[in-house]
């Protein structure tokens, strides 16, 4: 087990280099960012050249990448076009987004799995149909609209929440945004749980457990649920990254200056320093999340062993 974890941690190194190189190249392919800095007017050639050399854009790509990586190892993630340090940006954006992600994950785990268990045990009943309809609504209406409607109703009409999240972004202000971010994933988690539960509910070990006279609740939680969780856990693992980097729409609607928003702005401005910095951290998060998921497999199903 310990060796397995160490091996996985070592594998992060090539992934780290692979991703940074890939993202670096991609931002470079997008073209010359300087043209966008001078508004509708053309930058005069001298100023443009001056700006290019200041951001190191006049060098060949491989040299830019090496310089950048060299700096990263000294803790310098570069500077955004408006003169702000990328590390500063990350220091404000990541804590906020981590809070938002935690809220969203809690929704997925608590509501998603509960609904999944209930619908899985009551297939075809009204509750199952109701949840199915909710699922369809969540999938076909863009988060932009759900977010906006919740903001209007709860924030303006009923005054229950602040329509915009303050710059400190405390947990309680992130509840509604968290629900909006989690909504589509909730649909996945619910249906994954439902299917697994339905499949395993007829398994012989469950019948045996019931036949042994174990309380129903205990059978569901200890036997049925535990065995059904592997696909759900896998999905949630893949979702962590998506929640952290992809909450662009929700972050914009609720005025959250988080990772998704900063990353989006960085991409539109074609600022490789910001984008590579943020994505690198995100990939490390995926790697960690996937490692945890793989370790959880062994906990959920003891037959799975890691050498």
């Amino acid at each position: 087990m310990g060796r397995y974890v160490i091996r996985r941690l070592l594998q992060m190194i090539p992934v780290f280099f692979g991703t940074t190189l890939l993202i670096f190249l991609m931002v470079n392919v997008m073209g010359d960012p300087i043209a966008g800095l001078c508004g509708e007017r053309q930058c005069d050639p001298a100023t443009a050249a001056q700006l290019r050399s200041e951001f190191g854009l006049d060098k060949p790509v491989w040299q830019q990448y090496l310089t950048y990586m060299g700096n990263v190892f000294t803790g310098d993630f570069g500077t955004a076009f408006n003169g702000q340090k990328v590390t500063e940006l990350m220091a404000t954006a990541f804590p906020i987004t981590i809070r938002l992600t935690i809220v969203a994950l809690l929704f997925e785990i608590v509501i998603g799995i509960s609904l999944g268990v209930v619908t899985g045990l009551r297939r075809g009943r009204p509750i199952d149909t109701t949840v199915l309809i909710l699922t369809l609504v969540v999938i076909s209406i863009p988060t932009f609209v759900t977010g906006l409607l919740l903001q209007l109703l709860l924030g303006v009409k009923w005054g229950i929440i602040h329509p915009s999240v303050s710059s400190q972004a405390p947990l309680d202000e992130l509840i509604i945004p968290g629900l909006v971010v989690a909504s589509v994933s909730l649909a996945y988690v619910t249906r994954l749980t439902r299917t697994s539960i339905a499949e395993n509910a007829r398994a012989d070990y469950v019948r045996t457990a019931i036949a042994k006279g174990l309380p129903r609740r205990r059978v569901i939680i200890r036997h049925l649920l535990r065995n059904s969780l592997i696909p759900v856990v896998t999905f949630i693992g893949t979702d962590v990254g998506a929640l952290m980097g992809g909450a662009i729409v929700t972050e914009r609607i609720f005025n959250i200056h988080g990772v998704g928003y900063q990353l989006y702005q960085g991409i539109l401005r074609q600022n490789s320093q910001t984008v590579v910095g943020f994505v690198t951290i995100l990939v490390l998060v995926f790697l960690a999340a996937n490692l945890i998921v793989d370790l959880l497999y062994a906990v959920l199903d003891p037959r799975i062993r890691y050498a």
Partner: protein
Amino acid sequence: MRGATQAKWAACAVVVALAATACGGGGNSSGGGGGANGIVSSSWGDPQNPLEPANTNEVQGGKVLDMIFRGLKRYDPKTGAATDMLAEKIETKDNQNFTITVKDGWTFSNGEKVTAKSFVDAWNYGALLKNNQKNAYFFGYIDGYSKVHPESGSSRANTLSGLKLVNDKTFTVKLMQKFSLWPDTLGYPAFAPLPRTFFTDHAAWVSKPIGNGPYTIDNYTKGSSMNLRKWDKYPGADKAQNGGIDLKVYTDNNTAYTDLTAGNLDLVDDVPASQLKNVKADLGDRYINTPAGIIQTLAFPFYDKKWDTPGGIKVRQGLSMAINRDQITSQIFQKTRTPASDWTSPVLGVDGGFKKGLCGAPCEYNAANAKKLIQEGGGIPGGQLKISYNADTGSHKEWVDAVCNSINKVMGNNKACVGAPVGTFADFRSQVSQQKLNGAWRAGWQMDYPLIQNFLQPVYYTDASSNDGKWSNKQFDGLVDKANAESDKAKAVSTFQDAERVLVAQMPVIPLWYQNGSAGHSDRITDVSLNQFSVPVYEQIKVK
């Protein structure tokens, strides 16, 4: 400021740049009591550049500069006329050499006196290539600019030879050419004076700028908020009527608007397009919709042989007549834009050179004639008109689609015109400037200063900085030169209008509509208005 839509949208609407720093400020900032000490909270977008006067080319940074700086001239927020602010007098005999005298009694908020040197140093800094100031071209009319800011290579001088300090109060300016209206350009923030500390401790200054305007910066958290407070010792007549302004950065103008309707914000200076239909119901008379110095146009590639033909004139005129401006401005923009009938803006006023209907029939919708003209001109080059725009900011898709629908209807062909989105603004701009586009593209102009010259020369003069389509016409250039040399203002304006008539005949770009500034405010504050740059006149706002 620069091009219309970039400044207006990219800056106002969504762009909260790449910044967001340590927590602090923010939250509900309405407070601080009412009356003269009341604090107004207002929506903001993060400035794209450091807040140096000669480096700020969009509205969000411009807002702050407008509060903390006063220059030699100031544009009257109502009439747009350039009036003397720090200038005691600006004299010239030949429209090329100017003698500027600075008023006594002005200081920066740190106590330093504002002298002639404060201006000369600031302008030299702004013009010098190595300082990377994006508005350096503003000093391009001053003699010696090509030495401190050459087209390529490094600068051969550190100061502008056209600027001479005479004494503490006076300096002289020599221009490269005659330019009678030049003193009226001095209201632009790039010409603001700068205190010594800007040069001696630049990093500290940028993190908390010091100026000479009615407000001082109390607290600046990059990417999140800025708190400005009334400067009690401000010597000017336009003292702040409130206790201060709290600017709050929003990720989206829709969110700012929602916060306004929920009572968490006092002022939104950019009502999102999607709310325009319900804004009257939401805000009633607290909604402001006034003309701004912005015109939107469709530009064409004259570097492409297919467009630079004699028949092309008829095609462009026909296309112009195929666009139902009235319908598009009322249905898509809810009348926050006005159909254009010349190439300037209503904010110039009739005396300033705005002339409604100057374009005449070529700018009026006429389906039958439009189709006829286009066919006479040989049809749309390539059989299909592509209108390029950037998709990342500004919701251009809606109006481009509407323009295309209008043209398609006239042509009786659903594919005669299509929108061609480009992913990012930077990519769009580089395609424009590298002359990669072979169809039309969205263009726009936001005035730098309220002069008819500014609407014409930088955009249509041969090889001018924003003449992206590379249109060139000797007659037009000659008239502009003549107008600039004219010392009588009324005559200069009418000569510029003559130049504009060349545009009617040639239709190098199609004028679409004049853009308005739209704002909404809470019932806590009164006396809210927007100036010609669609920036709120903060110092006049009163708190109940």
